[in-house]
């Protein structure tokens, strides 16, 4: 059946494509924004068949993308002064955009200890195929360097896992990176690997011996899936995934432990276990990242400003984030007199905001739906029947129920029936690594 899609001109000169959406709770696990030339898409990762909503903010630049994603008729209708319904083209570009949305959602939410570098590379290649301009993520010299090094490792070690898929990823990147700038120093390695790819296609691949894999060290062991979380103790609370540096993810529920000490001097002790590192894929080099800067505030839901603030630091073992927040006599009295306290952990650059139990509960609901989605994707692909994904969706439904009945019902439906987008390479690597070394 041919579907129609609504094109709605906005009063401010933008144009909406698809149903109205505010990014509110109708997407139980949140949405991903995919910025393309002149148009930004909104992808609900729980709904593989949904047509992404789009906001066109520059008609001239968006035409190519809109035509590729929604069809020529939608493109023509962008000039309309009234809302119109047009037949939706059945176009593969849309599937690619939806898959990119899923990758960006995984990068942002990190519900599982997936190899983030692999998520990043696959997203970058998808994105470059859709972005079609100089703002594409393959403009980044770091990514080009990583891709080139990945290709080199794959070329020299034929036994690496997912080798064919990763070669395919590099081959796709090789067709997308600007060829007019290969004399740039930062692109020399990439151009070399592109040339090697062409040679291999003609003459066949080389390979090294198993002994060359000794650099696969103990750090590359598989890690267990994150704790599903259990609220069983006082003075515990959860991390809001979207407010902390990505280095603190994945995080289970109730992983933040805090203790108020009357003193002297009065203070709050905070400890948060650092996440288990993802198993890095051996083909992908690691780039040095700046150390994450994390702050924590003691929060009372009856008080508008923090009761205490301090930076957190990673202990010398690298396994626990700790911090001590100083309290004054006044703030100690407020803290001990408050029945509803927790800790707001956030990136240093993220400012304080009003304490809102409602928002904290909705964020928790979104996290449980995200866990449900992430686990169900692996479960469905591997044929496992642990029921963890279904439990997560059902718990998300309970948390959503007071705020959005429709979203709660959607979570219940996802617990039993779902259409999944194809697995990403990082998810496949996660499965393979865990199956290989339980």
């Amino acid at each position, binding site marked *: 059946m041919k579907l129609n899609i609504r094109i709605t001109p*906005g*009063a*401010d*000169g*933008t144009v*909406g494509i698809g149903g*109205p959406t505010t*990014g*509110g709770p109708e997407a139980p696990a949140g949405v991903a924004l995919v*910025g393309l030339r002149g148009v*930004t898409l*909104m992808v609900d990762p729980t709904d593989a068949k949904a047509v992404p909503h789009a*906001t066109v*903010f*520059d008609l*001239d630049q968006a035409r190519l993308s809109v*035509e*590729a994603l929604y069809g020529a008729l939608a493109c023509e209708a962008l000039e309309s002064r009234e809302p119109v319904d047009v037949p939706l*083209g*059945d*176009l*593969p*570009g849309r*599937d*690619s955009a939806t898959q990119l949305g899923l990758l960006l959602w995984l*990068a*942002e939410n990190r519900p599982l200890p997936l190899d983030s570098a692999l998520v990043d590379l696959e997203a970058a290649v998808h994105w470059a*195929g859709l972005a079609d301009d*100089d*703002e594409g993520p393959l403009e980044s010299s770091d990514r080009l360097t990583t891709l080139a090094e990945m290709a080199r490792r794959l070329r020299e070690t034929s036994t690496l896992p997912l080798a064919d898929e990763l070669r395919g990823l590099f081959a*796709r990147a090789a*067709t*997308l990176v*600007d*060829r007019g*700038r*290969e004399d740039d120093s930062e692109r020399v390695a990439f151009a070399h690997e592109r040339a090697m790819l*062409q040679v291999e296609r003609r003459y066949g691949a080389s390979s090294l011996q198993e002994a060359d894999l000794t650099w696969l060290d103990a750090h590359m062991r598989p890690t267990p899936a994150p704790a599903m979380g259990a609220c069983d103790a006082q003075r515990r609370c959860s991390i809001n995934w*979207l*407010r902390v*540096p990505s*280095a603190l993810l994945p995080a289970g529920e109730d992983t933040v432990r805090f203790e108020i000490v009357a003193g002297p001097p009065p203070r709050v002790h905070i400890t948060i276990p650092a996440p288990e590192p993802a198993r890095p894929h051996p083909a992908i080099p690691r780039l040095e990242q*700046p150390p*994450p800067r994390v702050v924590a505030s003691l929060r009372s839901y009856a*008080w*508008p*400003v*923090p*009761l*205490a*603030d301090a930076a957190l630091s990673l202990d010398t073992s690298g396994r626990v984030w700790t911090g001590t927040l100083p309290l*004054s006599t*006044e*703030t100690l009295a407020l803290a001990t007199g408050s029945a509803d306290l927790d800790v707001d952990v956030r990136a240093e*650059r993220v*400012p304080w*905001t*009003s304490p*809102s139990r409602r*928002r904290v509960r909705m964020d928790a609901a979104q996290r449980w739906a995200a866990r449900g989605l992430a686990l169900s994707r692996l479960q469905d692909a591997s044929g496992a029947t642990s029921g963890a994904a279904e439990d997560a969706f059902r718990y998300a439904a309970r948390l959503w129920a007071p705020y959005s009945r429709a979203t709660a019902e959607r979570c219940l439906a996802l617990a039993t029936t779902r259409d999944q987008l194809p697995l990403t390479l990082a998810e496949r690597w996660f499965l393979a690594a865990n199956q290989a070394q339980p």
Partner: protein
Amino acid sequence: VAPTILSQVDELMRGLGLEPCVKRSDFLEHIGARIVRARWLEARGTAPKASTPLSHADEGFLDVALRDLPSALAAANESCRGILAALEALAAGGATTWQWTQASERICTRVGALFCSGAVVDAAAEQALAADVIASLPTEQPISPDEFCLHYREAYERAWAAKGCASVTGHPPSAIALGVDRRPHLVDVVRVPVSNWSLGSNRAVYLRYRLHFKASSRSISSCCPRCADRASAPESDKALLEVARACEPYGLGSRTHQVVLRSLADGLAGQPDPHGGWLDWATWATPCRPIATDRESDEDLAEAVASALSAWQFHPVGAVLVRQFGLVELLVALRWVAVRRTWMDLHRHERTFAEPLRTCGIPLSVRNTLFRAFPNVYREWRDGLIGDPPPENLLDPCPTSSAAPGSAALEGFIGRRSRTLTKLTANPSMVKQVIDGSVELWRASYAGLVANAPDDHLTAEEAFDLVEALIEGMD
């Protein structure tokens, strides 16, 4: 991996054993894939992108699109060979010098266009195309960082002494979130985590010079698209030009562009109107007119930007981000991203056009930030993957400078807000005054609280409103 037009043409060429005389990837993309897409368009009115995975329905059409392609590809390869020979003849005659790597893509784009239009490519056409390729080649290649240092250090020292110090002190980049209040290096001596638009005014002079040679900087169709006068910037020594420009306020040579940047930063410095805003950019930008430069900031432009921000928070894209992160949480990053992205647009405009940007060039830049660039980079910003280098890695702006360099991250309203909150956290009795509505008492005690540095904090009214707003947001 799903097949694409590119992969299918590649496979076909390998099956045929066809080795193009130009770069294979150029031949694939600009000739093979282009011909296939043209056939697709003609038959179906629309065509998948060359690199987009094909659907099952499309794969069915692939056979039709690839029919007779081998002969077309072979003919196109012969045309490329003819043009290469003509180029060599021109070079041998002393008409010009050229590099194979530069000519390949240019030859392929021209041959691809001709084959798609059905034109006959005979010897005369090959001669004409060769001349056209020669004319399109860049006349200049960038010099190396070492050469740049050797030839331009002295000029930079002189120019900075004459103007740079005054520019940084008179127009501190940190005040508009453009960078640290320091002197940029001549070449980048310290490896920065990310070398892109996020460098802002911290960008080394050599990296500014390199922008002239970026492939993407040579097409500027998006900037000021409806301006009547698009005369090109005059040709000059690009290195000297960048040395001089780096010493100007905000590292921009045009007074108009300095005002645009400052106005943008001003427009994004305050709290968005909680009731929303409304801005029809098309109306605002028409007629396309010059930006007023009699003041440091153009009020009209700043108000337009503030209104766009106020409207954005209720727009689907803005609403998603506000729902996920909170509006206040986003403002510092948004201003930071907007100013630096726009700096790139303005610098590109100066490299390309003689006339400064006019009003019709503004909307695209602002919208691109709000709807695309910002959503794309917010996570990197929050994670600290993009940011300013440590000030100690940059140079003192003035010979006798003793002031600590300003930091771009926490300036403006958000910085004052943050410092005020720190004070209030330590003084709960003052928060109680707001809860009790004791305005007079609040004014008196707040003045004492910030007496040491009143300009670094919110005013008494702003701080009172802030606490009230935080109380309002509690539930």
